[in-house]
């Protein structure tokens, strides 16, 4: 739904709008150069020559009318019938003469009125629904000439718009057709930027990557297998081509794999000394440690009393301790609390009423405790506390011990173990702590009945590999007192009070988990959970420090890299083979990593556009050799920044991986290169091919191609152009102005090598039949005209749905950006600061981090109903998009965009 033209009352409104400004404005410029200097060419074939002149900003402008193909549909501003409207001129004309009444404030190509649909005009124009038979029976808006005539007759006298002005304005309006009636997706605007805005409540199932990483956080040793592999966990479901389980169910197939993994991991953990982060010697102690040190991290929160009881009963009910541990492990690893990552939140009012309590983390004494300081416990020695000892304490049966300790590793590389228990021997263990820190840390132990004997603190070297060289454990303070109340986290009460009380908010645990998954693709560490529950995410400075730490962590960097491989599809290159002996698996692996390295570079160093326009890449020794470009790392897999200022390489498009991925076995795929460029770089959605009719023209084109292949004198680009850009056919809907004009980026071969240059022209060997298969073994050194003469990017300013008619109109109007080769295309889009560049970064970054899009224009078909974007959400998202755009504008840094996304209220508050 985009635009409408309500012609009724239009004359009256125009009269009201026509003032001195419009009446005195000059007639439209006769220059074909736009104010931004964008290329303007009316050539309808990308291979046709055109005379061009440079504008002041260095962009080319052509007024050539050497159109060699007829317009393929009615949307084209054909020169037939005396029509000579120019959309580029028309844009300027429209701005000067029509925009007082017809406004497109949000740039969606729909001119709304009265504030509805985000536009403040008083006259509605919908380029996809022109005509007003009820008011003007003879005018149905089906032809651009008719529209021009209508404008001249009905608007011209009021707006001082002559015949040429009317034709130009009509051409401009016509160029805005996109096949969707009504307001566009971008109608939502941010009306209250300073208010709290709300993201989506989401229940994610862990993706394979998240699953493996989260498992890794649970154990003290590396996992026995890679549990992200399809054989272990199945394939991830993709939404908008990124792994995304925000609407996924844990189906039988997936759960079967989780079960197998849980069984396997439990067996490994039990049989592998040191795998678990705690010792397990008796059921009570093991159960307690399991809850506090394992399940706490797995569930990413403190367990409820019911959940604790479940674990305890498993230990208690099993025939042996090992059986208990086995089923406890399986239970947690199969638990929805582990397999899902919840960003459902808690009602704001409920969290205010019942703040999260940091169980096991922060307790307080009732009254003043007895505190002793500066103690030291030698190996195998203990401190015992009774009523009369020193230190001494009168136990009440509801007591709390707070002990602040530190340790150092022994010469044998063991950390000390502090066992806290009751009684006179080593039984009655209350807690066993590995003191694996050299700075003081405080632990709390609650005592729920009067001890039968002393409470002891033992430097338990027997649990540290019987280390006879174990250094003493140093105690800063040890406090005994009556247990008070657990302290709620000091949350951001003011913000919670200001929020919609019926909305939802992530509690500190969920907040920490959401941050960790968004920035590292992994569950949070225990320390982040502890920090969150200690209130550290409330303070903006501390929160930002945690965010930075996550981004800069090893997992954070791997997570950043991974996005690039998915975004540009190049991670799939490992599965692509080509008929070329040099295109080895090692080359493919290095090419894939090259893309990841480039994105990682711009992510951490800023200047995102340099990813497309930069004179650099990252090479290891494998790629340096393959590309014949020195300067890469010394070994395979060792990547180094390499200047490509003197090469046609540079950035992610003019790269081996992009070009080799978008290719066939023996030759390139200019169609895939073009289509994926629009989809992945500019975030344009290309119409799907439907019901392609057979025709004599298609057959003739096929015969022509066949004869050319037999002659061996056809380039890959012509091979495809002739077969697809057939005037009048439905194929031309996409191939006339959307896809084929980008064939000028075909200066790389099918394995990502730069094509040879002969006499300063990019050439290739012609395609010819060998055993019935077209292969590039025909005539040598054929001129690839699309590269050498230049090609055009039409409809360059569109983000989202791209219609053939709109692109056709742009092409017919000569409104395109000229480029020569893939690298030049990257530079051209950056020089013109095309909106798709930042829109795509924001879309990919937010989808990757949040699991959903902020923009209706980018919804995947599977995201419908409750998984789509309601109008209310669109209004909320408009504000966060504005924040992200501002963040991007500061330094064009992907890191800034991601940080802005997770630091915003939208990330914590949900609806």
């Amino acid at each position, binding site marked *: 739904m985009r635009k409408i033209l309500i012609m009724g009352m239009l004359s009256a409104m125009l009269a009201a709008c026509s003032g001195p400004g419009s009446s005195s404005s000059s007639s439209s410029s006769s220059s074909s150069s736009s104010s931004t200097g964008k290329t303007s060419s009316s050539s309808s074939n990308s291979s046709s020559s055109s005379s061009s002149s440079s504008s002041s900003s260095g962009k080319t402008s052509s007024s050539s009318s050497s159109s060699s193909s007829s317009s393929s549909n009615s949307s084209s501003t054909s020169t037939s019938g005396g029509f000579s409207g120019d959309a580029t001129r028309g844009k300027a004309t429209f701005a000067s003469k029509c925009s007082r009444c017809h406004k497109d404030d949000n740039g969606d190509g729909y001119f709304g009125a009265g504030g509805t649909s985000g536009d403040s005009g008083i006259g509605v124009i919908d380029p996809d629904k022109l005509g007003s038979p009820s008011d003007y029976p003879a005018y149905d808006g089906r032809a651009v000439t008719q529209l021009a005539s209508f404008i001249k007759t009905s608007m011209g006298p009021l707006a001082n718009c002559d015949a040429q002005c009317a034709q130009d304005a009509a051409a401009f309006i016509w160029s805005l057709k996109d096949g969707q009636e009504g307001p566009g997706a971008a109608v939502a605007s941010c009306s209250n930027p300073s208010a709290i805005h709300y993201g989506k409540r989401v*229940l994610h199932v862990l993706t394979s990557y998240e699953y493996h990483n989260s498992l890794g956080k649970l154990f003290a040793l590396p996992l026995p297998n890679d549990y992200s592999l399809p054989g272990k966990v199945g394939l991830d479901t993709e939404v908008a081509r990124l792994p995304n389980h925000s609407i996924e169910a844990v189906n039988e197939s997936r759960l079967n794999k989780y079960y197998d993994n849980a069984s396997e991991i439990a067996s490994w953990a039990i049989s592998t000394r040191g795998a678990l982060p705690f010792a397990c010697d008796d059921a009570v102690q093991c159960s307690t440690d399991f809850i506090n040190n394992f399940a706490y991290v797995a569930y990413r929160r403190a367990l409820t009393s019911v959940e604790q009881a479940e674990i305890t009963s498993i230990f208690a009910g099993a025939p042996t301790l090992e*059986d208990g541990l086995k089923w406890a492990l399986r239970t947690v690893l199969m638990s929805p609390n582990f397999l899902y990552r919840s960003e459902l939140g808690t009602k704001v009012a409920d969290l205010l009423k019942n703040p999260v309590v940091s169980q096991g983390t922060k307790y307080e004494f009732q009254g003043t405790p007895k505190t002793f300081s500066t103690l030291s416990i030698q190996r195998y020695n203990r401190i015992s506390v009774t009523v009369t000892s020193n230190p001494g304490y009168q136990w009440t049966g509801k007591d709390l011990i707070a002990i602040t300790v530190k340790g150092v590793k022994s010469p044998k590389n063991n950390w000390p173990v502090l066992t806290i228990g009751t009684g006179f021997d080593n039984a009655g263990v209350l807690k066993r702590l590995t003191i694996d820190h050299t700075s003081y840390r405080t632990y709390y132990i609650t005592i729920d009945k009067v001890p039968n004997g002393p409470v002891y603190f033992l430097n338990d070297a027997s649990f540290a590999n019987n280390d006879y060289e174990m250094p003493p454990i140093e105690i800063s303070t040890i406090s005994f007192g009556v247990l008070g109340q657990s302290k709620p986290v000091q949350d951001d009460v003011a913000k919670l009070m200001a929020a919609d009380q019926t909305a939802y908010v992530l509690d500190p645990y969920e907040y920490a988990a959401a941050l960790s998954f968004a920035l590292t693709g992994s569950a949070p560490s225990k320390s982040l959970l502890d920090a969150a529950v200690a209130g550290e995410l409330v303070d903006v400075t501390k929160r930002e420090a945690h965010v930075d730490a996550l981004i800069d962590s090893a997992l954070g960097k791997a997570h950043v890299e991974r996005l690039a491989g998915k975004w540009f599809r190049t991670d799939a290159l490992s599965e692509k083979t080509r008929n070329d002996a040099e295109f080895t698996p090692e080359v493919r692996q290095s090419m894939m990593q090259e893309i990841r390295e480039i994105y990682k570079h711009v992510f951490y160093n800023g200047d995102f556009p340099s990813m497309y326009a930069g004179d650099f890449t990252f090479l290891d020794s494998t790629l340096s050799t393959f590309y014949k470009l020195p300067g890469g790392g010394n070994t395979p897999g060792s990547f180094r920044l390499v200047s490509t200022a003197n090469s046609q390489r540079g950035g992610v498009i003019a790269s081996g991986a992009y070009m080799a991925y978008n290719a*066939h076995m023996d030759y390139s795929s200019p169609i895939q290169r073009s289509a994926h460029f629009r989809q992945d770089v500019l975030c344009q959605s290309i119409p799907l091919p439907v019901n392609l009719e057979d025709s004599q023209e298609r057959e003739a084109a096929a015969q022509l191609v066949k004869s050319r292949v037999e002659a061996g004198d056809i380039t890959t680009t012509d091979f495809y152009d002739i077969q697809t850009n057939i005037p009048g056919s439905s194929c031309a809907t996409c191939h006339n102005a959307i896809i084929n004009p980008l064939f000028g980026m075909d200066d790389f071969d099918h394995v990502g090598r730069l094509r040879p240059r002969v006499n300063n022209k990019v050439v290739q060997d012609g395609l010819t039949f060998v055993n019935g298969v077209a292969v590039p073994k025909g005539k040598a050194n054929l001129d690839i005209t699309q590269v050498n003469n230049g090609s055009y990017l039409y409809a360059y300013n569109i983000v989202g749905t791209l219609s053939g008619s709109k692109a056709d109109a742009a092409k017919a109007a000569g409104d395109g950006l000229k480029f020569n080769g893939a690298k030049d295309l990257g530079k051209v889009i950056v020089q013109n600061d095309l909106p798709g560049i930042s829109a795509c970064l924001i879309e990919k970054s937010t989808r990757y981090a949040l699991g959903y899009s902020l923009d209706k224009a980018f919804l995947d078909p599977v995201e419908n109903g409750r998984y789509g974007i309601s109008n209310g959400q669109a209004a909320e998202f408009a504000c966060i998009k504005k924040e992200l755009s501002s963040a991007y504008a500061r330094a064009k840094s992907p890191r800034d965009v991601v940080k802005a996304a997770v630091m915003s209220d939208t990330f914590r508050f949900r609806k």
Partner: protein
Amino acid sequence: MNDSKKLPQPTDKIAEAQRKDIQKSRRKFLDLVAKSGIGSATLKYSSLLGGVMTARYASAADAPKRVVYLYIHSGAPEDWRPSSASAITTNQSSYHYGPGSYNVAPICHFRGVDTEVSGHGGARQALGGDYSRNTVDADLGAILGPRSYYSSIYLGSNASDSGTGAGVIISSAGQPEDDPRRALTRYFGAVPETGKDDTYLLSFDAQKRALENIKAKLSTDEYTRVQTHLTAIGKIESRIADLANASAPDLNACKPTLPGTYDDTTNAAMVAHAKLQADILVAAFKCDLTRVGVLQIGNHNGSGWTYRGFDGHSAAHSGGASVWNPMMRDKFEVPAYFIKKLMDTTDSTGQPLINSTAFVQVTCFGNGLSHASTNAPFLLATKMPSFKPGFSSKGTASTSRDFHAEVAKGLGVDPKGLKLGGATGGDVGLV
């Protein structure tokens, strides 16, 4: 059914397992009917109850009912639908169904239906679904095999080559397993160790409670996600219980043998690869591990295999009929092989599997070259008495959803209980 005498007989364990399954299902069904107070006559003639209750307990019938869906990408050339079972020529794309090859056409109903989405607009219409509706296999698993070890088994051959989104993965039941060895390990591997006691019950109870807690935070329209998970938990739980039972199937008796190596990078290799997956599905039926199978061969955007210098996707669109037609002809060997395998393999009753199995060939659009939605090649092959016998062939304006509605009827399932958008069968004419 004379041919059953020539076929290898099932092991006693398999027969016993299936007999117990049928008895248990019947008891549960009758218990349910008794508790509901519904008379059997009411049940028989009420479409609502018939759709819900009899369908849910369809396995209470004396013979198990199975269905397998085989998807092949890109539709078919115009000559796919033969005029008779015997008039199939060597160069015809349906050659392998004919007397010159597997000769299974005499039990095949060839149909040309409308998949409604012309070309690259989704793949799930092949199984009657779309981007939000369940595909038929996802719902039939619980109906046809409420006590099966697996509600369905979904295998593939280059199925996920171009991604795993709803646009290319035909089933809403999950993701396909594209590797035969992994599939074999998964379904015929070592029986998981369960322990010597009932501690596992505590574990599964904890999981179910956790799900209920999550459910309480979800909106009602997301309950199906939780229900899917709960059903899956129940399935594993009952499998653990059954595996401890002496009547558990002897998986080794059914387990097929795989060659040492295989690949799927060429069209010919992909055919061989898909046949291995077909063997695994047939074995799963034989061992009664499931009542619903899906095999996805390629996808409409896939390019993971090559044919005459083209990748798979380009072969369908860039090579013209001289490339595409023979590629598809070769691919259609897989369904013919699969049907023959079902004819040659017996179930627990000693009958050929084809007597209790509806083999359904599907795709997601009509003609790969033209991206048409019409005349999409769909096929039913079976000897189940509830379907029309013999050979038939016709084009119809009915939809793929209608086709699936007809198949459901033949399986004894009211299509209204499935998510077929109200399709009732049109003039597909299979029952």
